């Protein structure tokens, strides 16, 4: 409870870190914020070539670029919060070593700054939807709670991974690879329906599955997400968050000694 009240006092610091991250990211770049959409856009092009033109995956009539981009931007958001969040303590090592402040402010700031990039990408998605003549629907509002769960999940994970990274740099090396494998174990580039029945139950253990699948249902197919599964995911995420946040707060007291 004490840490939440303290966190509130430091809300200005969170905003300041977020602003620093955003400003610093695009200083001395020519393309600036365009970089925020170049990454998901190029993945979309690659996926379109591989999954649409070569593998000819069925998307129930949705143009494949739109089909993949509608989930890619959410995944990119997730992946960048994971990557930057995991490295947050060590990339601010001088601060952590010298000055006291609640360390999770760095993590929340990254959720915010990555969120700005994500918003830019959302604009791109909207343009793409208009281009392909997709229609609007109330189900699209499901994106907000889905996004909420995703952000909580990412925060819970980086509480753990950033603390581990202080002690073991291995996690930084494994992260990029892990996230790539994880993306292919999540229905980002293909529909859930192509997952074979035999491994379906195993596949569904991935908490990102109902979230990513949910975005696509809500945005492209005017459907509600798989609510029972999403409920389980939510409970699991909240439990995980409680655990990892507590662990993080315990560990942060001696970050300065080991970082």
């Amino acid at each position, binding site marked *: 409870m004490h840490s939440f009240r303290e966190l509130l006092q430091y809300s200005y610091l969170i905003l300041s870190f977020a*602003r620093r991250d955003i400003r*610093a990211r695009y200083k001395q770049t020519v393309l600036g914020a365009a970089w925020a959409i170049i990454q998901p856009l190029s993945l979309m092009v690659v996926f379109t070539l591989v999954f649409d033109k070569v593998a000819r995956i069925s998307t129930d009539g949705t143009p494949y670029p739109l089909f993949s981009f509608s989930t890619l931007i959410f995944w990119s958001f997730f992946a960048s919060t994971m990557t930057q969040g995991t490295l947050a303590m060590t990339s601010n090592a001088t601060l952590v070593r*010298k000055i*006291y*402040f609640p360390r999770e402010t760095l993590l929340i700031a990254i959720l915010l700054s990555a969120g700005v990039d994500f918003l830019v990408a959302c604009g791109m998605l909207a343009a793409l939807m208009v281009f392909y003549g997709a229609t609007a629907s109330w189900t699209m509002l499901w994106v907000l709670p889905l996004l909420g769960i995703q952000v909580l999940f990412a925060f819970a994970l980086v509480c753990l991974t950033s603390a581990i990274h202080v002690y073991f740099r291995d996690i930084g090396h494994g992260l990029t690879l892990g996230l790539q494998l994880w993306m292919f174990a999540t229905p980002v580039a293909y529909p859930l329906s192509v997952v074979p029945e035999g491994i379906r139950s195993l596949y569904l253990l991935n908490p990102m599955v109902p979230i990513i699948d949910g975005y696509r249902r809500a945005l492209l197919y005017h459907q509600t997400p798989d609510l029972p599964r999403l409920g389980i995911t939510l409970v699991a995420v909240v439990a995980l968050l409680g655990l990892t946040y507590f662990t993080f707060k315990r560990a942060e007291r001696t970050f300065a000694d*080991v970082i």
Partner: protein
Amino acid sequence: MDGRPVLAFDNVSKRYRLKRGWHFASLREGLSRARRRLFASNGASADYFWALRDVNFQIQRGESVGLIGSNGAGKSTTLKILSRVTVPTRGTFSAVGKIGALIEVGAGFHPDLSGRENVFLNGAIMGMTRSELERKFDSIVAFADIDRFVDTPIKYYSSGMAVRLGFAVAAHINPDILLVDEVLAVGDAAFQAKCLNKLAELREQATTIILVSHNMTNIVQHCNRVLWMDRGTVRAAGEPEAIVEEYLQSVQPQKASTAGGSVIDDDAPVRVASVVIRNHRGEADAPLSYGSAGCFEVEYEVVAPVPDAVLGVSFENAYGAPLGGLTSRLAGIKLDVSRPRAVMRLVLDPVIFTRGLYKLSVSIQDEKLQRFFDVKPRMTTFTVDGPSLASREVAGHVIYPHHWQQDGDA
């Protein structure tokens, strides 16, 4: 002194891991260490280092406490615990009030951001709010004296400007407790004076100040109590001048240990052999007296006769600040190199040093002062008796022969 301390260390101990910069460099090492710990119960203590052991002290509101001690004594660890950057391994630390730290000022600067952006960022890191920063912004910029460059990225600042800006932000935190770590050493003389004024101002507002410094003059001038730390414990605590003197006496033997060796190579043609200091009564190794004569007898060896060798003698105060020196060249006197051993005397009449401890360095140079034949830095020390001048009063250690005149006097 109103009863309850604002800062208290209660049996505080702090342990660090020793190996590889105090953390496991990789998962593999961590795992192997864990396995060793499981299967071998002994020998684990060798991996650890106790930076603090059972440290106890209490600091009252409004006190200015100096923390002194040689490197590795535990000052930085103490500061880290005080600033809540880390926690004690054992024991408890308690604090009442807002703590601000002037530790490595500018640690939170981002090189790509402008001075203005960095003021807000750095202020936020130190716990200031937006409105507070907006209110103090002009004063911060004025203090740092960088107003022309507020919108320039910090990376184009000179290091002095960046440090000034960092200090300016920190100086505006207005905490209840301020931790200061050696920052008084930054900036030019004018900026240092500004910083010292700020410290004095904060002290007047009953801010509790903890000052860590190797500059004993600053410690004596700005603290009303000193904690002397030694190998992780508090060795002594009390009145600044007494503790500082005791501390300096204790580190003296090590510093003056160069008496045997020369910093110049062994085949120097002329070498300083020994030095004897006599007071006005001719007594060796007795304190000199302010206002009376003092004699410095330097014996030197001549290995190979070189022409034009001159003797240099220079003085430092106990804290290592140079107090000037003399060479025999000034009087046009060269060393006598015709004999293998000879003595040259420097007589100061009168001795103008104030009471205290001084260090003596001796050198032999060629007449053009371009080449050192021998240098014996801090070869020996001597004490001076005389009027006790609180070092608060004069920022030096000599009283020049002088008198004052004021308009209107006869």
